């Protein structure tokens, strides 16, 4: 009985489509003053609200690597929980596809838990810091959908832990996402129905980044 290599089992997962590698995403925003109402609505709709909604407080660092063959740099996002000891999360996001026929934005996505040496590791590989911010807010779950309501906080360089860092705007960003293996088209529909139930508090849409110009 031969043992299969890690590469073999990985391609097996890809070919049999049980490796989640596509992210379906809808985004929207809500003013600070109205976020309470949204929270109540979500508490009513979601699964994980037996106690209180799950909070998170993460630092996200985006690193970029110039590639000789393409004009686009390779971007990797590394997330670290600030309040607790947890593995770092590294995430690769592909170019978003805004297909008129699909109800959500779709992009390829790879999530990878790492040890805390990851930033050092990427730096040695030649990655450079692109931007960083703190996301603080609440996470809800409904079936396989993930809903986050988060405040984005600007970072004064060198003071990641500081409370003095200021929010970017007077509103919360609301994201509805599912990471699923390829070939599960009904996910989008499921999400559209859910987004429908959050109207008119928040209008979740597929946001075309290309139209936003060169904003990061």
């Amino acid at each position: 009985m031969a043992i299969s290599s890690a590469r073999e089992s990985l391609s097996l997962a890809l070919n049999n489509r049980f490796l989640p590698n596509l992210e379906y995403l809808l985004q929207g925003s809500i003013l600070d003053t109205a976020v309470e109402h949204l929270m109540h609505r979500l508490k009513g709709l979601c699964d994980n609200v037996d106690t209180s909604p799950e909070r998170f407080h993460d630092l996200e660092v985006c690193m970029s690597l110039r590639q000789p063959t393409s004009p686009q740099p390779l971007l990797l996002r590394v997330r670290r929980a600030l309040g607790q000891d947890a593995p770092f999360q590294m995430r690769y996001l592909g170019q978003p596809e805004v297909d008129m026929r699909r109800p959500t934005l779709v992009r390829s996505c790879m999530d990878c838990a790492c040890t805390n040496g990851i930033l050092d590791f990427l730096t040695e590989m030649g990655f450079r810091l692109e931007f960083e911010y703190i996301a603080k807010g609440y996470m809800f779950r409904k079936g396989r959908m993930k809903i986050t309501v988060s405040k984005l906080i600007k970072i004064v360089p060198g003071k990641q832990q500081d409370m003095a860092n200021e929010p970017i705007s007077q509103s919360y960003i609301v994201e509805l996402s599912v990471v699923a293996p390829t070939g599960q088209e009904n996910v989008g529909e499921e999400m559209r129905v859910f987004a429908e139930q959050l109207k008119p508090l928040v209008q979740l849409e597929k946001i075309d980044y290309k139209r936003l110009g060169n904003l990061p």
Partner: protein
Amino acid sequence: MGVTVLQPYPLPEGKSGAHIIDHLGKRLLSLGATHAGQFLVDCETFISTPQHGTPTRAVHVLHDSEFPASTFSIIDNGTGKQVALVADAIFDLLMLKMTSTFTSKKQTKIESRGARFEYGDFVIKLGSVTMMEHFKGILIEIEYRPCITLSYCWEMIREMLQGFLGINVAKEYPTYFTTQTIMNAMGQQQLHAKQNDLYEPMDTVKQYLEHFTNYRKHVQLHGGLGSSGLSVNGPVLMPSTVVGVGMGRS
């Protein structure tokens, strides 16, 4: 997970690797060990495409069937600094995203695979090392799972090794543990004896990388990959230098 020590087994003249492995396996079984599956440790090295101003960097990506969900990677930035990373197995796919910057050196893909034995709390793996399907040598892995500090159980492991290998194992700690450098607070490299540290899976992987690098170098010294029944006289040399040296050549 406990302390693991790697021991290259010298191949006597005129004996094939398979023969020796078979022999050692039988010895373990008669000692009372039980056969417990197979194992595989593989290593692939990615080299950064040369850009002027930066030294060549090498990323070694290793897998160990004992930790099937993880990918271990070690980057060597060419100036002696190493950073180690343990990540989910999906890290392999991320490496493929960087193929224009880091290219895989397919011809140095190397692995050690073979049978896995359990004896009490010991796990013993008889690995035959192959590079590009060419047999390179025998690498014995011995793990004492209940103990996580080498200095506490080295004598036990040594007795065990000598017992079933029938060779003399030096009393000193294996070189991997005595020649590690760490970065001190001033940012300088400093010699650090690891035998009293808590053992981590990464240490096993680093030992494998050290030995794999030796096997690869051996090929370069002998100029080519052709010699399949390569025999090594006496114990395999274990240079005390850090791994990754000599990766830039070939």
